[in-house]
């Protein structure tokens, strides 16, 4: 298969959906691809047992049912060439050509190593939400939520809605920082309402600040979590631990395309101008991939990118004030929820860092550069291609990530070897 789109959007979360809808409003033919089976991204992920919120329904329906939008589900980008993406879905590989490309690849969770984090029963906080919505059984299960940031509240609410007994939310940030953040929410009324709603849903669930999960204990599965809080160390028996330290942008595709990145702390994000245009003329980026900002800034940036990619800058201009307001929220979030030094010291020498290849922290002692460590230990050489361990090591200040090569995700060999996959001119055999 080989298709051309005026605007090709990668990622069908709030940013990508808004971009697709904005681009079609100017008559563009749009391709919208996502690796997941359903649209909505992580924040509006389809829930097999519960109806979606109305904004999600409207946004998803508005983009997907449009006659000029081709919705390509379960489609993953494998490689790039100038003006084209090579993708695969469960059946085949294809080449998608574009006039303009919008990267709305979103974010993943920052997952940091601690003793026991590899035990079955330990997931990310957003990870548990995603699994619950996929139909993961939580009814009657004892769930402990930990880590950092407002995502913990959302994860707890999802777990509770799916019938879990939420034992508590353990935020690593101190009470002062959390209070300051909550106090600043009045500037973002929608956020304040959302937070209040979440608290309502979470009536009776303890929320503890300044608390860190030190260890997860169990034999072949999680049994107990050891917490360190302001009043000392305690062990809490539970069935699931959902633990995440916030989000980080999925920049791998942008990097492969050669987009300029800038670093926010230890992690890269895509640089754009006010039109969401990257340093590459035909490539735009919107939402979390440009820096963690939440759903509202993703929606407005997506719309700006969609308008601009379709050549309608005046429509994009009108959205600038909304964009600035939404991004300011992200700023507040970041400064209030810095990670505590204890979090960085959790991994012991025998804690596995690379879960694909089972490489322990101490295996990397004595290596000063990423490549030597990787060649000697295989750290980052597994199926996740270093997405988990690379981000963790960067956050811990050990090594920084390298460049990107295809395949962007593990790709079927038939996709890479298909004869009809490439432009005919390049086939020499």
């Amino acid at each position, binding site marked *: 298969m080989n298709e051309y789109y005026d605007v090709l959007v990668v990622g069908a979360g709030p940013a990508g959906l808004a971009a697709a809808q904005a681009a079609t409003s100017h008559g563009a033919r749009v391709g919208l691809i996502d690796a997941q089976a359903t649209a909505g991204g992580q924040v509006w992920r389809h829930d097999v047992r519960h109806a979606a919120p109305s904004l999600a329904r409207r946004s998803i329906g508005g983009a997907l049912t449009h006659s000029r939008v081709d919705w390509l589900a379960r489609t993953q980008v494998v490689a790039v060439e100038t003006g084209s993406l090579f993708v695969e879905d469960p059946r085949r590989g294809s080449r998608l050509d574009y006039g303009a490309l919008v990267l709305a690849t979103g974010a993943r969770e920052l997952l940091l190593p601690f003793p026991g984090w590899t035990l079955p029963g330990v997931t990310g906080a957003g990870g548990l939400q995603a699994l619950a919505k996929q139909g993961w059984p939580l009814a009657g299960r004892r769930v402990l939520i930990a880590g950092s940031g407002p995502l913990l509240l959302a994860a707890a609410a999802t777990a509770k809605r799916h019938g879990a007994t939420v034992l508590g939310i353990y935020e690593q940030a101190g009470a002062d920082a959390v209070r300051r953040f909550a106090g600043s929410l009045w500037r973002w009324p929608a956020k304040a309402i959302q937070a209040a709603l979440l608290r309502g849903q979470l009536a009776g669930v303890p929320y503890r600040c300044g608390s860190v999960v030190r260890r997860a204990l169990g034999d072949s599965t999680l049994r107990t979590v050891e917490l360190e809080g302001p009043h000392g160390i305690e062990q809490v028996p539970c069935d699931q631990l959902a633990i995440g330290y916030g989000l980080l942008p999925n920049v791998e595709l942008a990097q492969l395309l050669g987009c300029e990145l800038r670093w926010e702390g230890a992690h890269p994000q895509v640089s754009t101008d006010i039109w969401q245009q990257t340093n590459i003329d035909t490539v735009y980026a919107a939402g979390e991939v440009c820096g963690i900002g939440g759903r509202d800034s993703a929606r407005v940036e997506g719309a700006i990118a969609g308008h601009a990619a379709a050549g309608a800058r005046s429509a994009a201009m009108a959205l600038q004030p909304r964009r600035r307001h939404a991004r300011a929220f992200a700023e507040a979030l970041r400064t209030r929820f810095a990670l505590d030094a204890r979090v960085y010291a959790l991994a012991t020498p025998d804690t596995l860092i690379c879960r694909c290849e089972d490489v322990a922290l101490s295996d990397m002692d004595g290596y000063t550069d990423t490549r030597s460590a990787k*060649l000697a230990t295989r750290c980052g050489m597994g199926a996740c291609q270093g997405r988990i361990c690379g981000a963790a090591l960067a956050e811990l200040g050990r090594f920084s990530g390298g460049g990107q*090569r295809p*395949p962007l995700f593990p790709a079927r*060999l038939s996709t*890479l070897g298909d004869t009809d996959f490439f432009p005919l001119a390049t086939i*020499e055999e």
Partner: protein
Amino acid sequence: MKTYDLIVVGAGIVGAACADYASAEGLRVAIVEPGPVGGGATAAAMGHLVAMDDDPAELALSRYSLELWESLSNLPQAEFSRCGTLWVASNERELASIPAKRARLAAAGVETEAIDSDTLYRLEPALAPGLAGGMRVPGEAVVYPPAVARHLVDRAVERGARMYSRRVAHIEYGGVRLDDDTRLQGPALIATGCALAQLLPTLPLRARKGHLVITDRHPGLVHHQLLELGYADSAHGDADSSVAFNVQPRPTGQILIGSSREFGSSTPEVSLPMVRRMLARSFRFLPALRQLDALRIWTGFRPVSPDGRPYLGRVPHEHQLWVAAGHEGLGITTSLGSARLVVDQLLGRATAIDASPYDPARVVA
């Protein structure tokens, strides 16, 4: 100024082997390597230890080296796996070439078995139907080359070798100057692979790019290093680009898929058309590969001399300057023998095999 008995420039597997052997012989050794040990062609290589029989000199050096590799067969980090090599004949013509190939290998002391078609499918059930048979070399093995290079360097350093994590700025009379202006005095041995052109432009060397693809773990799908008998045509032809079926079971259960050869591309970027050609070739022999996932693809550069043989020995018209470079695709296999050949000459000893085919003087007027 520091004085050494030998300054090894480059810590790929060839330089590492030279430093290891020289230090074992009691020489005071310096190793100069600005990058990771074994981080160049060594890291990009498949790590197949194989006797190639199409050139008698190459066969002699392979054979000599394969014996030396036995001393590393129990080194855990070498991941030495004696999977054997299975050369696959696609047709009757290739099958007919096997007796002569076996005779050449037997003359060099390499044990082989002729494999009929039934045995071929018993040994490797995943092979595509319709293949004619093949030849098995049971003693051959695969290793993890960068870890071996690292081990050899570590062993040299334990014996007192000094590591300089710098680049050589110039070769000077009686030594080298590093990019931080340090001068090292003593005979220099250039083992920089493709970077030879910058230091010794009088020795012609071209870079021949290759691609490799590695899959997720699928233990048991293939058991031997598998090559098509037409491999030598690709490996030793002078075509601008060629591909051949060359698949290896890693001890991890992953499958390593090669091979491509390409002159004229000097950038390390993965070429998707080249990957496609290489994979399309591998599917003809192993159709089951089609549904497996590629985890990573990488490229590397093989250093190729005009006659395909490495330069091993004294550099003509130069004072105390030695070379061990230009091993093309056989550098892992022949590294250990190459090191002995060069260092034994440096020490004025008789070499275990005839060193004259590798004498750099052959290309210098």
